[in-house]
């Protein structure tokens, strides 16, 4: 370890003692949900344990149980530090922090009004003399100088020593993350729990954070790393624990565990690479698989949706970076990628529900900076993942309401006829309550409502979420029918079977970046593995950094 960490405050010396964090039989329920259900986990000094799992698998909850932010319904937590064993099963978060368990939350959490160096000083271990210092007894100034020096040393390690006086709230997200790491450095924690430390960071900041995690590990800190980006996990972790529905699905060395077919199936969610569709008309779909993109009329006119260098923000955090694609009428783009890749965020950015920069053009209208209703008026429609629709209305009422609140570009009857052509079964049930529809029909209704505004582009967020697998072909058929009517679609979907059946192009996102794009015919199993599991390099896939315009050139049509 380099000189800075032997801070005069005595904290960081603790790193030299080996620490082991052990959790046994941890479980906690929220209502009926058993969020963590009997998990045993161990993190030793100097190792980095990757913790992965699908959304809702209980990763963050497990971190909360270990850090004491949530108290467990049962199970033991102990920290062994050198010779000393801390039994922490009943201890609150402060006590665990004092035993050397540091926690970093998913978003950087600094005190925005304090300066950078003061935020780092907050990480220094509490001492018995703090209270005396608070009333200004002699030695306070010397202690203050020591603290300041230790904090500046830590800032030097994260390469922020030139900005100690900056208000923490004015730093970029990446810098805030680095300040947090400096805070961990001064704390002398032996165990570090990291919840998606790379979320929202730029490429260089990712590199710096990864290097720091690596160097902390070499210093003998035990690290538990929750991360969706499996490239990073492969790079950093020594060992992998895969959670599924609150319990451990698999654990072991990283590569072997990631090759486990059960893990692949769980982690990628509903990825069915061998498409397991039982379509109503098998030949139609077979034909599509065989021929790649379904035979389609020649490109109809100019592009209806152009997205160039799209960046979408959650607050000030960019979550999606430089994504570009173009659709002509009847095109279907599938946005695919692992959890947290920014797929839904990209859709929301296009729909104007989240702040975005970059170029978004619909049928020649520049939508940048426009509010959501304006975007809808320009021909965009968005079908969110949760689509309740107004309760207590009949199917017909819902469609009429959607027409009224839509652009009313086309007369009601005419619009209804158009929707009828796509979804005759829906119009047949116009007088029924929407609640009486089947799952697949409800999805049709949600899309039908979007179509009532006569859109040129429909954005769909996980149309098969919550549907029985048997309904997937119906949804695929629905999307295909829409495209046949000349409506372009952008669909975020976990079920790659659906993407293959209903889309002409695929854009692969990982960690907010476009890592692959190409026609559906080129989207094979190996490519899917690349996108989802981050095998190989940082930017796998056969054409990573290619901007959208060249995609058009490449497009077979």
């Amino acid at each position, binding site marked *: 370890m380099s000189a800075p960490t032997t801070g005069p405050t005595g904290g960081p010396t603790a790193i030299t003692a080996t620490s082991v964090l052990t959790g046994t039989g941890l479980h906690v329920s929220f209502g009926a949900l058993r969020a963590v259900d009997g998990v045993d986990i161990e993190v030793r000094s100097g190792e980095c344990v990757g913790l992965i799992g699908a959304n809702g698998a209980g990763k963050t909850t497990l971190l909360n149980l270990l850090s004491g932010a949530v108290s467990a319904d049962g199970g033991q937590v102990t920290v062994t530090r050198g010779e000393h064993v801390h039994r922490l099963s009943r201890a609150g978060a402060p006590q665990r922090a004092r035993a050397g368990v540091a*926690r970093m939350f998913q978003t950087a959490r600094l*005190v925005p009004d304090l300066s950078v*160096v003061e935020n780092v*000083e907050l990480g220094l271990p509490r001492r018995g003399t703090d209270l005396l*210092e608070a009333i200004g007894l002699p030695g*306070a100034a010397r202690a*203050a100088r020591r603290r300041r020096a230790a904090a500046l040393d830590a800032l030097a390690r994260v390469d922020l*020593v030139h900005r*100690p006086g900056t208000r923490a709230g004015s730093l970029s997200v990446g810098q805030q993350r680095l300040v947090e790491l400096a805070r961990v450095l001064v704390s002398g924690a032996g165990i570090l729990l990291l919840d998606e430390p790379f979320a929202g960071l730029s490429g260089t900041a990712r590199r710096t954070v990864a290097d720091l995690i690596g160097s902390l590990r070499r210093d003998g800190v035990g690290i538990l790393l929750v991360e969706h980006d499996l490239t990073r996990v492969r790079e950093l972790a020594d060992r992998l624990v895969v959670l599924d529905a609150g319990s451990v699905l698999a654990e072991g060395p990283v590569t072997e565990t990631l090759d486990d077919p059960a893990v692949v199936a769980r982690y990628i969610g509903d990825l069915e690479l061998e498409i397991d569709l039982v379509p109503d008309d098998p030949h139609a779909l077979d034909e599509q698989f065989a021929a790649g993109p379904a035979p389609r009329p020649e490109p109809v006119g100019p592009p209806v949706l152009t997205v160039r260098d799209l960046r979408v923000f959650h607050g000030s955090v960019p979550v999606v970076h430089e994504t570009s694609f173009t659709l002509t009428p009847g095109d279907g783009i599938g946005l695919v990628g692992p959890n947290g890749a920014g797929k839904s965020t990209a859709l929301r950015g296009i729909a104007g529900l989240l702040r975005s920069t970059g170029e978004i053009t619909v049928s020649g209208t520049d939508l940048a900076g426009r509010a959501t209703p304006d975007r809808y008026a320009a021909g965009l429609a968005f079908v969110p993942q949760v689509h309740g629709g107004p309760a207590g209305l009949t199917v017909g009422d819902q469609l009429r309401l959607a027409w009224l609140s839509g652009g009313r570009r086309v007369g009601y009857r005419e619009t209804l006829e158009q929707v009828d052509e796509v979804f005759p079964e829906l119009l047949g049930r116009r007088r029924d309550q929407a609640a009486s529809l089947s799952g697949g029909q409800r999805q049709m209704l949600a899309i039908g409502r979007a179509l009532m505004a006569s859109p040129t582009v429909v954005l769909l967020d996980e149309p098969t979420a919550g549907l029985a697998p048997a309904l997937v072909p119906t949804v695929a058929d629905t999307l295909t029918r829409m495209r046949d009517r000349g409506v372009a679609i952008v669909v975020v979907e976990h079920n790659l079977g659906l993407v293959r059946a209903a889309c002409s192009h695929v854009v692969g996102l990982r960690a907010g970046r476009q890592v692959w794009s190409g026609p559906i015919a080129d989207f094979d199993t190996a490519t899917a593995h690349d996108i989802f599991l981050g095998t190989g390099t940082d930017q796998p896939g056969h054409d990573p950094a290619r901007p959208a315009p060249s995609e058009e050139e490449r497009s077979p049509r």
Partner: protein
Amino acid sequence: MTAPTPVPTTAATAAAPRGATDGVPARHWRWTQPAVILLVGALVLLVLRPGPFDLRVFTLVAAYAVAAVGFNVLVGFSGVVSVGNALFLAAGGYAWARLAVPQGPVVALLSGIAVAVVLAVLAGMLLLRLRAYYFAVGTLALGTLGTIVARNWTGLTNGDAGITGVGFLQVFGLTGVTSIFAAAIVILALVCLLQETLRTSPIGLSMLVGRYDPPMAGALGVRVPAMRIVAFAFSAVTAALGGALIVQLAGGAFPDQFTTTASINLLIIPIIGGRGWRWAPLVGALIVIALPEYLRFLDDYRLVVYGALVTAVALFLPGGAQQAFRQSWSWLRSRARQVRR
């Protein structure tokens, strides 16, 4: 006690590519504020030589500022809102009234502080488990209880008739209100020094992070409830000191001095001043205590104008007077820069 000298400035600025703005944070020299307060106090006494009415108003401002320093820490650092701090004013006031003449001023002040701190720690351990609003309601009950006890425990407080002939702090060979004013200024300088020391200490930082983000504070090893109790106890200390000064100025201790109105005044002072700002207690006390007195020329409209002013501050300066000071300061600086060009 030595002032903390700002640290490796040379190294830090050497590495800074953009220079001044990113240097080590200006850590206030913690004697600056007490020195300014003492200086202004001396100027008021020696140069301004206020008349009896003005001097009384200034003394009351100083007394309330003393009491509000702790409240500034409580609201501004810890983010806890209490509406019962008149109880601690009363503890300090009645302790002074009962003990100052027979036992001497030091015993009177110290026992007032001791009673207030014990009450604050007990009440804090009981009430600070509650969430923000319920805590405020709980302290309201506490303050009301204090008033009731003051009115009815006649053996100790002599009820509504109050205790008169309580003496005053005699300093620098002064007499009467002048002496109380000088003592109030000295005490104010002292508690301001404590406030600044606390702010820059690990405890002060812990209070701040406990206010911004309790879960994060827990993960940093900060015991948020303990920090809140410390802040509550500190507010009790300064309230007891302020209470003793108020009693001396009034020439006696009466229940009416320690009603909920006094608690509300204590709450408003740091908020109007800009909570957490080190000058907030004094600036806030000037606005809340002195301003109504100097609006007396408006006769019947006095409270109307005062109410409108306070509402305007609340509406347009959510950061309190501090915001106004900051804004005019940066405006002046930018003007100065333009002039130089």
